[in-house]
């Protein structure tokens, strides 16, 4: 029997630069990477990284990267709607990484529950049984889409931990409020803190997910560190970022965009190519980070392609009225 011993100059397979990375990196990318590396090291030494609990996560084979074509990390982290840090897509990447601290981070689970919780996000990850990776489609109400490899845990696990009472019919999510470090909040572009909500059966659906990471790394501040909601069959604005409070209620919570402009944004916000936004069509979507400059559009799928998992939640509901 031949037992191979590694020579001391041999590196593990994990240290090898992939051919793709080797080929695509030009001098500018290299400089950028070095710059980010230095910034990352500085951040780490200050203990400012968001939730690291459970990383690296294993891919959930039901939602694999191989089934979809994940958007490049560069675009996922540079093209953000996070109005707390400005309304322009490029602003959150800059402004959410200036004064805002996402570590340590406490989450409160409260309302009509038997087991209220108030704990650090990393403890929450532990109690939820660790994290997994899921690759989901992401469709914005503005008619663009991405594919994101999220790390996190099913929202149903958090619901089970809280043990809601039978009177709990809805889940209300509240984001952080810190106008001093969030320039969008101090400018008052929306009413803050940002609020979102789900019906409790939606919250317990297998797809509803609490994300704490993207591409195997703690979720960047501009994407909603350290934990955010991901409901891939709904428009992106339902995916509330940087959650501080999860409250079980008897009444339907009023979500921020519905309150701001109820004629255009509703409570359900299910992706639906047949129900237009008052100002634009929802029948198709622009693919973010497409390699083709001109042919980068695809038809939008009912429930964003998750009809099988969620259609039963809405039997008998008029989706045109309950947009």
């Amino acid at each position: 029997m031949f037992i191979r011993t590694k020579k001391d100059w041999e590196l593990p397979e994990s240290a090898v630069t992939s051919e793709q990375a080797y080929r695509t990196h030009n001098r500018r990318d290299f400089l950028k990477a070095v710059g980010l590396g230095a910034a990352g090291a500085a951040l780490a030494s200050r203990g400012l990284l968001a939730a690291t609990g459970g990383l690296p996560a294993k891919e959930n084979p039901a939602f694999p990267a191989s089934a979809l074509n994940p958007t490049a990390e560069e675009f996922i982290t540079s093209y953000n709607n996070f109005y707390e840090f400005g309304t322009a897509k490029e602003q959150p990447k800059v402004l959410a990484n200036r004064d805002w601290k996402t570590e340590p981070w406490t989450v409160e689970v409260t309302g009509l529950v038997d087991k209220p919780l108030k704990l650090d996000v990393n403890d929450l990850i532990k109690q939820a049984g660790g994290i997994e990776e899921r690759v989901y489609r992401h469709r914005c109400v503005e008619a663009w889409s991405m594919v994101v490899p999220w790390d996190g845990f099913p929202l149903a696990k958090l619901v089970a931990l809280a043990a809601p009472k039978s009177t709990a019919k809805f889940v209300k999510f509240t984001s952080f409020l810190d106008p001093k470090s969030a320039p969008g909040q101090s400018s008052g572009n929306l009413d803050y803190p940002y609020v979102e909500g789900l019906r409790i059966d939606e919250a317990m659906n297998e797809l509803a997910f609490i994300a704490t990471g993207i591409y195997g790394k703690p979720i960047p501040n501009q994407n909603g560190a350290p934990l955010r909601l991901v409901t891939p069959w709904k428009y992106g604005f339902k995916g509330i970022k940087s959650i501080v409070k999860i409250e079980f209620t008897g009444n339907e919570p009023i979500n921020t965009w519905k309150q701001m402009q109820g004629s255009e944004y509703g409570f359900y916000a299910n992706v639906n190519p047949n129900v237009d936004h008052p100002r634009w069509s929802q029948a198709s979507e622009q693919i973010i980070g497409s390699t083709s400059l001109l042919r980068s559009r695809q038809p939008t799928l009912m429930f964003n392609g998750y009809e099988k998992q969620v259609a039963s939640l809405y039997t008998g509901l008029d989706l045109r009225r309950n947009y």
Partner: protein
Amino acid sequence: MGLLEKLLRSKVVVWILLVLPGLWPLWPIFGWPDSSVLADPLKFVLHHLGFTACILLAVVLAFTPLRVLWPKWGISQAVNRHRRLVGVAAFVYAALHLATHVVYETGLDWSQLGHVFQVATTKPFQLVGLIAFTILLALAVTSPTFMLRLLGKHWKPLHRLAYVAAALAAYHQAAARKLFPMQVVWIFGPLILLEIARVLRQRQNAAGKS
């Protein structure tokens, strides 16, 4: 004659000023790539062209109030030499904006053309933009000197539609975003102030004559 006035009298300088904004998107796409632009480059181009068309429309409409308010000021005389050029440029940017919209929405799948047209004519936000464009098209077509002669006394009332186009463009621009964009105020606010001042001045002048 000041340097600025000399420069603004030059057709070459004005041409350069009008062409440069059209070239600007090349910079964040090819020159120094910006990830937030590359994420959806065509949308960046689309918004940039519409934005430029709005600015040029507001600028060209400001020329008349400048002339009425400060008739002897060299700058106001200089810019008023280029009324037709700047007006046609506003139309060209609006046309490029519309063409980009069609490419963006169809993704070059021409079977989608009917759907894009149907959406454009049924959503008030898009229809208003389309009407503003149609007005600019009519004004551009009737801008050559022989058309001016041909239309005679009808030319001026027709070209007053530019004010309607500006109002529609301002609404279209404001409705293009989820929240009201302040840039609409920066672009069209000064024009409104100039127009108010101009109307007051013209009344004063009329009262002085009678």
